[in-house]
């Protein structure tokens, strides 16, 4: 007897973590094309090591963004002369980044408003 793994449906509303990772990837790529390891490093560095991205989680996310047409990818050579797959932002991805950023800012502001008084009360 086996259970079926739940299918990942592209139309399903993304949970917060996934949405956040997508946003961070798009944001990182605004500075130019980058391979997956570079994206991971950049997120870690720019978040001053606060955000620890499990590298493995990055690739399905990259794949998803690629399938949605927000980023495009092609194989190239890294500065250290290794073959790597480079991602760059598409115009649609750029637009998505603006939307997502706005949404995220509204969301975090709202959460901050909710959480703010409660934390001071305690």
């Amino acid at each position, binding site marked *: 007897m086996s259970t*079926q793994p739940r*299918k990942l449906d592209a139309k399903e509303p993304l949970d917060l973590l996934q949405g956040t990772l997508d946003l961070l990837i798009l944001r990182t790529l605004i500075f130019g094309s980058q391979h997956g390891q570079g994206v991971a490093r950049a997120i870690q560095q720019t978040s001053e090591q606060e955000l620890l991205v*499990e590298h*493995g989680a990055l*690739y*399905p996310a990259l*794949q998803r963004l690629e*399938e949605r047409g927000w980023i495009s990818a092609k194989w190239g050579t890294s500065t250290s002369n*290794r073959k790597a797959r480079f991602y760059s932002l598409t115009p649609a991805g750029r637009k998505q980044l603006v939307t997502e950023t706005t949404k995220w800012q509204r969301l975090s502001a709202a959460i901050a408003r909710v959480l703010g008084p409660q934390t001071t009360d305690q």
Partner: protein
Amino acid sequence: MFRRKRKSSDFRAEIEAHIELERDRLIQQGRSPEDAQAAARRAFGNVLQTEERFYESGRWQWWDNLRQDVRFGIRMLVRNPGFTVTVILTLALSIGANTAIFSLVNALLLKSLPYSHPERLAAIYGKTTGTDAYNMRRSIDGEQWELLRDGVPSLLSAVSAGITSGVNLQSGSHAQYLHAARVSAHYFDVLALHPLLGRNFSEDEDRPHGPKTVVLSYATWRTAFNANPQIIGQAALLKGEPYTIIGVLPEHATTPLNADIYIALQPSREGEGGGTNFEAIMRLRDSATWQQADAQINSAWSRSQYALRHTGDHLTYYLVPLQKGQTDSLQAPMLAVMLAAGFILLIACANLAGLTLVRMLRRTTEIATRVSLGASPWQVQRQLWIENLILAVLGGLVGIGAGALALRALLLLLPQNFLPVADVSLDVRVLTFTLALALLTSFFFGMLPALITRKIDLRSAIASRGIVGGGAVRLRQFLIAGEVALTVVLLAAAGLLIRTLVHLETLSPGFNSNGVLAAKASLDDVRYHDPAAFRKLLSQSVAAMRQIPGVQNAGVGLTLPYERALIDGATLSEGKQAGQEVSTDTIYVTPGYFETLQIPVLAGRSFTDADGPDATKVVIVNRAFARLYFNTEDPVGRYLTDDAKRARLIVGVVENTVGSSAGGLTDDHAPLTSDQTIYVPAAQVASGEFLTVIHAWFQPSWIVRTESSMESVGAAMQNAMAGVDPNLPFSGFYSMNDLMAETLAIQRLEVALLVTMASLALLLSAVGIFALVANIVLQKKREIGIRMALGSTIGQAMVQVARSGVIASLLGVAIGLLLAAIALPAIRSALFGVGVYDIPTITVIVATLLLVTLLAATLPTLKIATIDPATTLREE
């Protein structure tokens, strides 16, 4: 969209690249290569899981899931071989039955006729209104044909002689008997058949006394003329005269007449054209409409003598598609049988629904576990539907095989050339039908369990050790009542048809059909138009046949019992009905005809050699004729006047013999009847013209009574004939029982089909009842154990359990009898010698069902004897 954009190998390469880049970075930071490699992997996390997630996001996932579901489904089905085999066999039988029947329906009623633009082909029907209203295909007479040909510009019309006849083809020293059709000019044009060689009949060749011409079928051209390409314009010695071969039809070209050769009909208002002896076919011309054509026909024929004779009938003519015209008589029986096949499918569905329902309930634990492990309702449903689909497809495939076998058996049952189509095959339409049927069935039998499982309550399902559903028993009882009801209807229909067939086959034939060998020869031959030559042939050949060792008697008759006879006029010259002209079957016979067939002479005498051409003109009538026209008086010694206006002395009365009513006017005639018949001595047929006309329609039969083997006597008969005329071949030899079987072919077919269906229905119902009770035994094992521990006997427990099956079946019988009472009058027209509400039939059916029910309900309860109360209690 079904192609994954990116291969998983590409994804894996990317991950590898990532880990190497990360390792490079860590080495740069001063860590050892081994340490760096490990750290890079650690930072990445689970590579396998990442790859899996990538894989799942792919668009082929539905395919993977499907494959997984199918694999799992097959495993589940293999693990329950009893269930699987029952379901597949049930499906195979029901779908097979439907496939076979539908192939016939397809070939007969659905497939287009094999001609160009078959939808523009038509046959002529006539409808009368009033008390004796009927509606049927019409034959037309010579005048109507001329009016049709010249007065209906909307149609291209042609006629043929209503029946194909036999003719002799002489090639060298070899003579052969061929089936010939006589057709008018444009007959092949109406069918849009273009000759392979030569041309079709011209209008000139179709005029009375026009040139004698013939068109060969492809097969005849090959076999009788060695496929000679220079054959056109040569003469063929047909009917003792040279006929010019003007055309050869292409291979696979068929006509509604399906003859070996075609001769110009040369129709006129005289001779056979004086009666409605022609069958018309027509093609609608390009610019015309059916309404125009109907109107033109009615207006053209309103001036005919036929219309004037039938003014009281309010006869209107109309055109119907030729397809329908050709298969009209088969339509009702085919649809009835198709309906019966549909019943089988419904019964099978009810059974399968019951079976899958039980299986589903027994799988409640499994399903509950899956749901609690996170399977969505959709996933559970999908799994169940896929299992149903697998069963449906397997059942459908086996069903196609069963159907193909059944169809072959069915076609073997039919006499040759019985069906008006060249072949019946499992074509694309039939296969599509079968596939659709299999899917539909799986939908029907899958729907019920699917609806039930939606209501499964997880907690109670797990707690109750996986057996749920007292309500399901009630539901299954209704299903079984339904299938038993349909079975009753099928059994009743089959029973009535069996009674009909038995009635017809055991009808007193009026003669001794055993030990008679018959053969036909064609006298549609210029050598025998002269009555003297005809007389000489008959007397010499009969005398020669009487010399054959083992032959007790021999004779010749224009037609035999079981055959359609010539209908001719006779005038009663005495009694209160004197001067009245009546229609009667008329048969010329030689002395020895009655003795050979052993038809009893009831009064007066039989014919003798003394009843020659110059002696007193005599006639023998049958009992039906004597009774109708002479009532209780003795007809012997009275006179009647034959069609040639000659008075004939009635010298004898013979027993009625059964004849075919295929020539009867309406459909509700029994296939076998005892019509009024008069017999005249063959030697006293004085008109060459009369001989010519009747021999164009009928081929007389030579009969011998013998106790020797049919084969050796057949050869000896041919030899005896060759001694008199070496160029007169026989058509083939057959017994009177063969003749009866051929006459009753439709009845036999109906019985064979319905009996098969009814047995199938009975079998399925029995399986259904058996499964119900067996399942209850299984479900109630604990309850029964407790009851027995408390003092109940095995017998009481058995009765208690079997009751549910018996009650369901009884309810079904009651509903079925009601349904039968409503539905069966529809087959009244197929019944002879038995009423629709036939008490013996109903009694037998009810008794059969009770017996089967008791068996099916008791057998599974025998298992109760093996229940040990102690064990069951311990399990509690």
